[in-house]
């Protein structure tokens, strides 16, 4: 478990962050997962992720698939943040995750892309 210091509001709280990403039937990573990993790296946040878990399309019992079921998450990637009290918060939208946990603000276009990716009912706006 590491101490996340980027967010002044949570600077003294130790957190454990798990990222769940999806692997498709052909063994490749899903598009959004690749994009989010690139954005994490670009923002210098990649090493803040303690653990990366795979939700494997080929294995419904893979750990990531089970975590998705447990937390009722329907899209990858997502993040599980556990504080030192054992409380877990699940983040499914990347720009909200980095705002809540690291107090980082995504660009408008990045936030818009995240909203589209995680809000399928917006497909007709």
């Amino acid at each position, binding site marked *: 478990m590491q101490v996340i210091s980027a967010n002044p509001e949570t600077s003294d709280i130790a957190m454990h962050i798990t990222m769940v990403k*999806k692997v*498709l039937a052909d063994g490749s990573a899903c*598009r959004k997962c690749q994009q989010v990993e690139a954005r994490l790296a670009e923002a210098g946040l990649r090493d803040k992720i303690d653990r990366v878990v795979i939700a494997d399309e080929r294995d419904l019992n893979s750990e990531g698939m089970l975590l998705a079921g447990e937390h009722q998450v329907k899209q990858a990637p997502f993040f599980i943040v556990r504080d030192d009290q054992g409380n877990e918060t699940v983040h499914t939208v990347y720009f909200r995750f980095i705002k809540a946990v690291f107090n980082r603000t995504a660009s408008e276009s990045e936030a818009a*892309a995240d909203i*589209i990716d995680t809000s399928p009912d917006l497909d*007709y706006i």
Partner: protein
Amino acid sequence: MSKTNFDAVKLASEYDSRHPSDILKLALDNFNNNIAISFSGAEDVVLVDMAIKIRPDLKVFSLDTGRLHAETYRFLEQVREKYRINIDVLFPDAESVQKMVTNKGLFSFYKDGHRECCGIRKVVPLRRKLSTLDAWITGQRKDQSPATRAGVPVVEKDGAFSTADHTLYKFNPLSNWSSAQVWQYIRANNVPYNELHNKGFISIGCEPCTRPVLPNQHEREGRWWWEEETMKECGLHAGNISKP
């Protein structure tokens, strides 16, 4: 300033089988001046027709992506004149559009999907607008897309555009109406409609991303028809998983 005592879950249940006019009245009564209808230039014109009878000073906004059909622009103007309302037309950020078009061309969405273009042309201006409102009203209906809209309630806390500091509510008064009911209302009330409907269009969006559908084709097939499979690739439900 958001309303803290508005129980969207309870009201969604209470109003689920009510007429769209009742849902519009609920919305307009509860959010007074800080609510607006999002008008796409399609069948959601019935919302304007119903709401104007409740609140003549109705606020309406529309997203002009720069890629709409000429028919849609004419229709927006027709609605503005008939109902004597101002339509707040929202435009995308010119610099963002220019950067995308310069880098990728005018039809990049056919190659790498519609999300980037929709993000720049629709979602960013929409998000800016919604940050100034406490609630908005949409024409979303369950029958528009069984895959993505089957669970659309008549009123909800907006999970996509609310922020930690600002709760936004979304009303979907037509949620439980079918396309047939919408058209019955349009004909019975002599409501103007987009001439594209006479040309086989059901769902109407941007010109490059919308096409007419054939009889018995679902309206979803008229939008982003080239990328259906890729939209599913990040899903984590069993239905996405190929059977051996």
